[in-house]
């Protein structure tokens, strides 16, 4: 039995083809879980993630679904129900951005971001909770953002979706606690991903000055926090937010 005690648990990570989602999928598998790697468009990357996981000896399933699409989500959970009987752990990580100042934000830009980031998480949780109630054990971890707590100029839609995800999670935590299901949020700060790498040098330096730990984070460091919240050890933690940002926000 691994330290995290996740042996045999069935986990679904949305948006697991790259970045934090991928790191979480790999980490949960290393902790003993069977992992479903969800992706919407990045098929090759999703398969690469799955290969990494199965190469390490863990059981993995690839499930394609655009989480903003209710039917696709229903199909994904049908697939997982047939394969594993349900899931025990859900990591709502799938997210998109479509930046712009609010005054100039198109309705489509608003809708797309809310649909994937917030509605998608709602749709997944709605299905996931059913099997978790049946098993009287569950872990839902929502990946939020400092933008969701503090706002972010040029990304009001993204910030709204993440702030909303935070409150949705807390509401759900109040509803399903009695069934042994915890619902928490992890708030990553600036994590070394393609997005950060493509940032202009001056911007990187400006950000680094604001981070007490003086560096950007690693996707694995965020994955570690999520794995902890999914573990047995975190069974008395619900409605909480674990911020992994090197001290950037201290919320």
């Amino acid at each position, binding site marked *: 039995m691994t330290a995290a005690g996740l042996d045999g648990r069935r986990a679904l990570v949305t948006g697991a083809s790259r970045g934090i989602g991928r790191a979480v999928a790999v980490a949960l598998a290393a902790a003993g879980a069977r992992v479903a790697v969800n992706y919407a468009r990045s098929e090759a990357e999703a398969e690469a993630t799955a290969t990494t996981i199965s190469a390490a000896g863990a059981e993995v399933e690839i499930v394609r679904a655009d989480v903003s699409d209710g039917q696709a989500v229903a199909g994904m959970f049908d697939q997982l129900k047939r394969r594993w009987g349900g899931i025990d752990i859900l990591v709502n990580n799938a997210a998109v951005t479509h930046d712009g100042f609010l005054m100039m934000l198109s309705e489509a830009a608003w809708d797309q971001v809310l649909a994937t980031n917030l509605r998608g998480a709602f749709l997944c949780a709605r299905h996931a*909770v*059913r099997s978790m*109630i*049946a098993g009287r054990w569950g872990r839902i971890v929502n990946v939020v953002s400092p933008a969701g707590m503090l706002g972010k100029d040029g990304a009001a839609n993204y910030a709204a979706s993440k702030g909303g995800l935070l409150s949705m999670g807390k509401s759900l935590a109040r*509803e*399903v606690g*009695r*069934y042994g299901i915890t619902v928490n949020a992890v708030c990553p700060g600036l994590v070394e991903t393609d997005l950060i790498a493509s940032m202009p040098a001056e911007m990187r330096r400006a950000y680094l000055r604001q981070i007490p730990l003086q560096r950007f984070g690693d996707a694995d460091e965020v994955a570690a926090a999520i794995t902890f919240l999914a573990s047995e050890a975190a069974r008395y933690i619900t409605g909480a937010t674990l911020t992994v940002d090197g001290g950037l926000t201290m919320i």
Partner: protein
Amino acid sequence: MNHTELKKRLKRLLVDGLKLEGVDPESIQDAAPIFVEGLGLDSIDALELVVLVEEQFNVVIPDEEVGKLAFASIDALAQYIAQQQRAQAAQGGA
């Protein structure tokens, strides 16, 4: 399964599934409200009942509106399940 059998089974499910200690399934009245009054269950307990009913009777209770009607009483629930099963059988036969 006939309607009486179904209702008996539902009462049993309610007591066992929601772990209602000391409640005799036979004492649950067909037309009495399941939630709030009656057995003193709050509406969150309904979630577990939804899951149990969906699994055991292979039906779907998709949302709040349907749930409210279906779970109004044992009678209402039995009726809903019977309706759903008839609809499924009709689809299967077509």
